[in-house]
């Protein structure tokens, strides 16, 4: 499983830039990013090369940040590639809170990042179907 950072951001101009500037200034490399936005607030979700350091730096700078375990699964970059992964998940009753894609350097496959309600059930399902999930090291993530 991979550690994802989630940052609480108010919907105000400059708020997103502020958090990313802090990461840049600490030499953190952002590998994947997605924003959930609502009319009142947003949640910035990040995969970075060093989650523990990034979390510490963000906390030091007064950001509200939380780490969550997410599962990264390679998806064949071809027609129907994602559907053939989502179908067995649905059958196994794995509920997806949210998901987003991740492009890794020099990789043939695309990756999907999954935040599900029950990681153990998801991993068991992947194993039963002979599907892989990616360890942090394979993404150059600590």
């Amino acid at each position: 499983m991979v550690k994802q950072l989630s940052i609480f951001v108010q919907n105000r101009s400059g708020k997103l830039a502020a958090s990313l500037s802090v990461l840049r200034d600490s030499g953190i490399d952002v590998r994947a990013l997605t924003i959930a936005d609502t009319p009142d607030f947003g949640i910035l979700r990040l995969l970075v090369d060093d989650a523990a350091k990034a979390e510490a730096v963000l906390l030091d700078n007064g950001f509200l940040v939380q780490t969550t375990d997410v599962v990264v699964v390679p998806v064949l970059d071809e027609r129907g590639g994602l559907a053939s992964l989502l179908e067995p998940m649905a059958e196994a009753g794995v509920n997806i809170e949210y998901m987003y894609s991740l492009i890794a350097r020099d990789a043939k496959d695309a990756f999907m990042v999954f935040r599900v309600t029950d990681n153990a059930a998801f991993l068991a399902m992947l194993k039963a179907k002979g599907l892989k999930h990616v360890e942090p090291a394979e993404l150059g993530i600590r």
Partner: protein
Amino acid sequence: MDKYYQPEIETASVGDIRKIQLERLQEQVKHVYANVPYYREKMDKAGVKPEDIKELADIAKLPFNYKQDLRDTYPYGMFAVPLKDVVRLHASSGTTGKQVVAGYTRGDLDIWAECCARALTAAGCTDEDVVHVSYGYGLFTGGLGADGGAMKIGAVTVPVSSGNTKRQVNILKDFGSSILCCTPSYALHIAEVLHEMGYTKDDISLKAGVFGAEPWTNEMRLQIEELLGIKAYDIYGLTEIIGPGVAFECAEQTGMHVNEDHFLVEVIDPDTGEVLGEDVQGEIVFTCLTRKAFPLLRYRTRDIGVITRQKCSCGRTLIKMTKPRGRTDDMLIIRGVNVFPSQIETVLLEQGYMANYQIVVDRVDNFDTIEVQVEMTKELFSDTVRGIAERARELTEGLKSMLNINAKVTLLEPNTLPRSEGKAKRVIDKRKLHD
């Protein structure tokens, strides 16, 4: 069992207290009638003479004093002694209009220090304690009031005054301060900075705090006690009456004992002025029985509370007043419903937020709106929209059941609301701008 500073007063029988009060009241009314033309005129108009005060209940014959009277007589019109007998002036912060100037004779300062010494003693202060005073020193009564009390006891006083919170934390740590005196919102801020600096309550030696000068809820007390590892005591007072120390909390923490040998307390109906007596909620009214320079009679505090003579486990017999439930002047009327900021604070703290919040009231198309802005906390934050929306929904419902009106809830990033070093400004009422 609590220690007392003046057991002969603090544990006196009700009969003895009433006897002292009547003697002092008669004396005080004579003093004011003879020396304050403004009030003499008021008494004459009401058809009451000093001789008419034959028993304590006769106080109801005296006219009330309001903040407006103090503004009308600004600066010295209510003084009852010549300036040559005055040794100190204090002034109220003036956040709600023109400031009020209060004078003290040497004897008044002594009485005041005695009252604060009783409060500090009730919080466990002895001559072996180090008292860190973060109330502002100056015209504001907080700093010098607490200072005078600590001096009476013979404790070590650290007159830090307010501001520069990191330095405050270092001083608390290095000087081994055992008792903290400041506003409750500043106590929370100090706790916040303590933790930001990487320390915990184990790095400081505080055992108690004496907090006042602004309303705070019991939930806020629990938060302060937890974060600083102390027992937090309330202290009540106002510059018009003397400053902090008019009433103070004991270890039972169920209300504040009024120093009633110096300040006679009444609870009245704020609309009719009728005396309500004990165990009924109303506006708190004080009469200074011993203060000579600025002796207000029947001063309307605008604080809403209850007084009671129920037996206290601390052994003090002094009458108790509840924490003011609100003020008649910070009560908001939203769509015809009375709303006290303290009610909102209660809901926020119950649901795990910190006491960093702001209430914004406005009127849009002739319809009152109320928005509660509060900072999100690490514990309540979730990486899912559903999780945060759920927190917001719980808060909206909690406010609705407490206030009986719908309030908009806005969750903010940490450290976005201004921190106060003195009295916190919680309410922004934009409606006033349109009047």
